[in-house]
């Protein structure tokens, strides 16, 4: 039995009837027609499907479309404004933070959420903030640089040069 679901996606309202089991990521891709959000796994690790639900980063493969009833969704397609790339998009471009580009929308959305909580993260805080996203191409080095650069552009303190970055917990 189908359920009505009404969502706002990137500022635009949508109303559809969907099966309850329709995953939110499939709703966005196949029903709303926004294919920028990607699928990379079955078990909620890779984060390629990350979007913002009422401003919070969520893995859209682990939510049903019906759960998004009445919510404000932001996908990668909603990041640029008036033809201008969002500073995160610009930074990933500037810092070579992507290679194949498949994981990139998920990273940008996760980074947008991270910066909304912490506008001036250290390298290690960026790593932790992006722990839910996997990249196979970049080795993460330039992704961290990109987020640092975006933070600076968005008004955090200038990117700290020479900061020692050692992984660990």
């Amino acid at each position: 039995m189908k359920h009505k679901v009404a969502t706002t996606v990137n500022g635009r309202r949508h109303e559809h009837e969907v099966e309850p089991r329709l995953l939110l990521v499939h709703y966005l891709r196949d029903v709303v027609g926004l294919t920028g959000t990607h699928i990379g796994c079955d078990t909620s690790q890779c984060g390629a499907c990350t979007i913002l639900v009422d401003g919070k980063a969520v893995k859209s493969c682990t939510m049903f479309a019906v759960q998004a009833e009445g919510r404000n969704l932001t996908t990668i397609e909603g990041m640029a404004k008036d033809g201008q790339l969002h500073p995160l998009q610009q930074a990933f471009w500037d810092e070579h933070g992507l290679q194949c580009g498949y994981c990139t929308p998920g990273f940008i959305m996760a980074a947008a959420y991270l910066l909304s909580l912490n506008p001036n993260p250290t390298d290690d805080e960026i790593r932790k903030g992006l722990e839910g996203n996997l990249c196979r191409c970049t080795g993460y080095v330039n992704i961290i640089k990109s987020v640092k650069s975006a933070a600076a552009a968005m008004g955090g303190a200038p990117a700290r040069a020479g900061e020692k970055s050692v992984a660990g917990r």
Partner: protein
Amino acid sequence: MIPAAFEYARASSVDEAAKLLDQYGEDAKVLAGGHSLIPLMRLRLAQPKALVDINGIKGLDQIKVEGSKLHVGALARHVDIQNSEVVKDKLPILAEVAGEVGDNQVRNMGTMGGVVAHADAAGDYPTIALILDAEIVTNKRSIAAKDFFKDLFTTPLAANEIVTEVVFPVADGPHKYIKFRRRLFDWAIVGAAAQKMNGGWRIGLTNVGPTPVRAKAVEDALQNGAKPEEAAQHASDGLNPSGDLRASPEYKKHLSRVLTRRAIEQAT
């Protein structure tokens, strides 16, 4: 991958949720954060015939202190527990544990009630609940943590019974939870919790058996004046963990001792 079809209903109150669960019977499941349930459904390891979505029930996400008790609503998300000033003040170990569940995206969705009701051996909250003698409150009764985690994925919850809150004692003394895992967002291979309270220690272990373990022998040794290293040797007393991909039984027992010692030593 694609879940099997199911019927779906949203509950706006706990009573309504219970009624819906009654209506759908044994094959219905509660949908809260969904981050344990939905991955299982995508792999078709779980195929509930109906989901009762409780995310809209107001008031179920409250976190508050009443006297010496901290009430954490079943729908409190990990991120909210992690950032709650109340929790950081009154039961800081819980805030720290919440901050290490999964990743940011998971923490925005996963709930206290969900983790507790799912009773995964690798869940972190059950260990804290157990060692602190928390109460799991449902729409029908209150169950002591030591009676709640019966076996892997097994609790006394009836089909129409819903966790509404978990009640912890306030404990703001030295504490430490060490979650030993491979990747930062992984489940614990072994976790060790140490909480000093009421003049003594509470020590617990995650993922060394089908349910969380309270290391009473360690607590007693500490009470009797043993140094952390000595006391921690008892962490593996009575343990019979099964091996898995990441750890042999022997390694788990070893880790339980090492991590327990470290948790006690690092507790602040």
